[in-house]
C-alpha cells in the first residue's frame, strides 16, 4: 500500500491518497501505508492522456522507440498515449497495431494505444482494414492518416461512416494538399519576409469546414488534430453550436510559439527546430487557441510529440523534417500558457489533458476522477519551480525541443500507472 501524503487534488486542499491493488482505496487525512510519498505543495492530477504521439516504431528506431517514447511520456506525467500510424510499415493492419500494442505492454511505462491508419499505406486511395484493427487485441478506436490529410471527400465520408460500427473516430490531419505544395511556414508577414513558401491558414480551415459538414451529414464522430488557426476555432465553435459530434485538439507548441520564431529566436533565424506541421502561426492565432481551449471549443491538449534525429534538423530550413518533441514539456507549457494566464485552473487542466482525451479515445481505465475506486493513475506535479529547458536532459531518444533557451514553470515529480510508480522524484523508476 502506497500513501501519497498532503497532495492537493486538482489544486485543492492537501489530502492523503491511499493506493491499494492499483486503485485509489481511500482519500482523507492522516492515512498510513507501507510506502509514504510526501507530496507537500504538489498538485495531484489524473494521469495525463495523449491523443497524438509519434513513437516512430517500427521503422525509425533511430528517432524514437516504444520504449524510449513511453519513458518520455511517463516523465511528462502521462499514463496513456496514442501511437500515430505513420510508421514504416504503416500501422494499417491488425498485425502492426498489435505489435505496437505489445511493445507498449512490454515497456510498461504507460499504456500505448495504437492509432490505425485510415487508408492503406497512408496513400489516400483505399480504406485500411479498420474493422480488423478495431477487433484486434489493440482495440483501435482512433483512426488517422496523420502526417497526411484524407483529402478525398468521398473517402473521408466513407471512413467517418464506417467507424460508427465500432464507435471509432476519424482524427483528421486537416491540410488541403494543393494549397500547401512546398509550403514551409505560415503564410503571412514572416514567410513573406523570409522568402519561405507560405502555408495558408485556409488550407487547414477549408478541410475542417468540409469535414464538419460531412460528419454532420452522416452522423459520425470527427476529431480534428492539432488545430492551429483562429479561423479553425471559429468553424469548430460553429459546428459544436449545431450539436454536431466534433472534437478537437491543440498542441502545446501552438499554445506558446509563433511563426516569428523562424525569424528571431534564442537559436538563430531559420532554425528548423521550429519547423512543424501544421506550422507555427501568429500571435492572434495563439490567443484564439488559448481562449478556445479555455471555453472548451477545443477539447484537449495533444502533444504531437514528433522525434527526429539531429541530422534531420541541422540543415537548411527547406530540407529539414517537420515536427518537435513535446511529451516531457507538455504540462509545463500548458501551465505557462493557460494556468499562469488565468485561463484554466488545475481542474481544467485535468479535464483537457486527461478526462476529455480519454473519452475521445474511448479508454475505459484512464481519465477518471481522482476518487475512491478509480484506477490509481496519478500525476504529482510541482507548479512552483521554474527551470531552463535542457534538451540534453530529455529522456526521449531525440532532442528536437523548440523550448531550448526558455525557462518554463513546473515539474512532474511522480507518475503512477494503476498504482505502480513509473516516475519518482522526477526520475524513471
Amino acid at each position, binding site marked *: 500500500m502506497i500513501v501519497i501524503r498532503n497532495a492537493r487534488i486538482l489544486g485543492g486542499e492537501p489530502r492523503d491518497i491511499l493506493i491499494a491493488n492499483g486503485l485509489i482505496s481511500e482519500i482523507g487525512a492522516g492515512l498510513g501505508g507501507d510506502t509514504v510519498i510526501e507530496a507537500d505543495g504538489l498538485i495531484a492530477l489524473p494521469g495525463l492522456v495523449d491523443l497524438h504521439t509519434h513513437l516512430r516504431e517500427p521503422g525509425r528506431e533511430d528517432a524514437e522507440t516504444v520504449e524510449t517514447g513511453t519513458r518520455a511520456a511517463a516523465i511528462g506525467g502521462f499514463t496513456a498515449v496514442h501511437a500515430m500510424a505513420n510508421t514504416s510499415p504503416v500501422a494499417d493492419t491488425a498485425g502492426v497495431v498489435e505489435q505496437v500494442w505489445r511493445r507498449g505492454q512490454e515497456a510498461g511505462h504507460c499504456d500505448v494505444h495504437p492509432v490505425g491508419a485510415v487508408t492503406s499505406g497512408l496513400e489516400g486511395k483505399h480504406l485500411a482494414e479498420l474493422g480488423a484493427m478495431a477487433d484486434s487485441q489493440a482495440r483501435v478506436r482512433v483512426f488517422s492518416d496523420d502526417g497526411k490529410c484524407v483529402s478525398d471527400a468521398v473517402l473521408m465520408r466513407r471512413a467517418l461512416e464506417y467507424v460508427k460500427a465500432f464507435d471509432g473516430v476519424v482524427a483528421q490531419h486537416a491540410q488541403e494538399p494543393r494549397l500547401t505544395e512546398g509550403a*514551409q511556414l505560415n*503564410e*503571412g*508577414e514572416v*514567410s*513573406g*519576409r*523570409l*522568402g*519561405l*513558401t*507560405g502555408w*495558408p491558414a485556409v488550407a487547414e480551415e477549408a478541410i475542417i469546414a468540409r469535414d464538419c459538414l460531412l460528419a454532420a451529414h452522416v452522423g459520425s464522430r470527427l476529431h480534428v488534430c492539432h488545430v492551429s488557426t483562429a479561423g479553425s476555432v471559429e468553424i469548430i465553435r460553429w459546428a459544436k453550436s449545431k450539436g454536431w459530434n466534433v472534437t478537437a485538439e491543440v498542441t502545446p507548441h501552438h499554445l506558446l510559439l509563433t511563426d516569428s520564431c523562424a525569424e528571431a529566436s534564442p537559436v*538563430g*533565424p*531559420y*532554425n528548423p527546430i521550429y519547423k512543424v506541421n501544421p506550422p507555427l502561426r501568429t500571435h492572434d492565432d495563439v490567443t484564439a487557441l488559448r481562449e478556445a481551449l479555455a471555453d472548451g471549443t477545443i477539447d484537449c491538449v495533444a502533444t504531437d510529440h514528433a522525434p527526429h534525429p539531429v*541530422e534531420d534538423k*541541422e*540543415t*537548411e*530550413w*527547406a*530540407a529539414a523534417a517537420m515536427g518537435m518533441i513535446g511529451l516531457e514539456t507538455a504540462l509545463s507549457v500548458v501551465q505557462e500558457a493557460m494556468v499562469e494566464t488565468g485561463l484554466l485552473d488545475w481542474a481544467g487542466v485535468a479535464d483537457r489533458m486527461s478526462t476529455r482525451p480519454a473519452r475521445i479515445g474511448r479508454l475505459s481505465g484512464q481519465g477518471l476522477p481522482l476518487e475512491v475506486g478509480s484506477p490509481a493513475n496519478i500525476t504529482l506535479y510541482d507548479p512552483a519551480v521554474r527551470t531552463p529547458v535542457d534538451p540534453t536532459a530529455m529522456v526521449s531518444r531525440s532532442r528536437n525541443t523548440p523550448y531550448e533557451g526558455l525557462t518554463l514553470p513546473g515539474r512532474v515529480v511522480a507518475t503512477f500507472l494503476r498504482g505502480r510508480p513509473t516516475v519518482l522524484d522526477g526520475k524513471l523508476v
Partner: protein
Amino acid sequence: MKHLISAGDLSRDEALLILDTAEELARVSGRSIKKLPTLRGRTVVNLFFEDSTRTRISFEAAAKRLSADVINFSAKGSSVSKGESLKDTALTLEAMGADAVVIRHGASGAPHRLANWVRGSVLNAGDGTHEHPTQALLDAFSMRQRLGRLEGLKVAIVGDILHSRVARSNVLLLSTLGAEVTLVAPPTLLPVSVERWPCQVSYDLDAVLPKADVVMMLRVQLERMNAAYFPSAREYSRRYGLDRDRFAKLHDDAIVMHPGPMNRGMEISAEVADSPRSTIVEQVGNGVTVRMAALYLLIGGENQ
C-alpha cells in the same frame, strides 16, 4: 560588420560606407593594372549550390582584384551531390581556413545556417527566394552613379516579387537609403502581407511609370505560368512588360535596370534593353566593384 546576409541588417551608414568604398575602388578598375594587395593571404571560398556563372565570376573577379586566394566550390560533381550536408561542407571549409564564404543556395536562409558553422564571414550571393544583398548594393550604386542621388528617388520594381530575392533586398536597402520603392506585379506574384513592407504596391504598371526615376524589371520564369500565377507569357508581357510604348511614358532622365539574365521580349523588349538609358551592362561592371568593397570591409581589417 561580420557577415553580409541581409540588406536589412545594414544601417544607413554601413550601406553608404560600402557604396563610397566601391566608388573609390572603381577608380582602380580604370587603371591598366587593376590589382590591389589588400586581401593578400586571405582565402575566399565561392560556395555555389546553384548554377550562377555571372554571380560567381563577379565575386571571383572581386576577390582576385584584391589579391585574395579564391577557391571555387561548386555543388555539382562534388561531395554535395553525393548527399553531404551543408553542415559537413561548412566544417570542411572551416578546416581549410576560409576567411570569407560566398554562398549561393536554393534554400532561403542557408547563409544564416552556414554562419552557425563557420568562423569566417558569410556573404549571401542569393538564397532561395529570400535575399541577394550584393545585387541590391550594386543596383543602388548604379542608380547613384547615373542619377547622382538615392534620397527621394522613385524606384519601380516590376515582376515576380513573390519569388524574387532581388526585390526583397532592394526594398530593404532602398528604404534604408531614403528612396521610395513601388512594387508592381499581378496580385498572384506578390506576397500576402506585402502591404507591411516599407514600400508602395501597385497592380498597374502604366500608372506608375510616368512618376518613376528608375524602373527595375525582374526576370519572370516561364514555369510560373504552369503554376497558374498568370495565364500566358503573352498576357504577362502585355500587362507587365516594358516595351517601346511604355518606355515612352518614362520621363527623360529615367533609367531602366535589370538584374539579368533577361527574357528579351517577355518582361523587357530588346530595344529597351539596348537603349542608352538602360544600365544593364554597367550593372555587371559595378557588381565587381561593389563586391570588392564588401569583401574589403568584411575581411580586410588588420585583426583577422
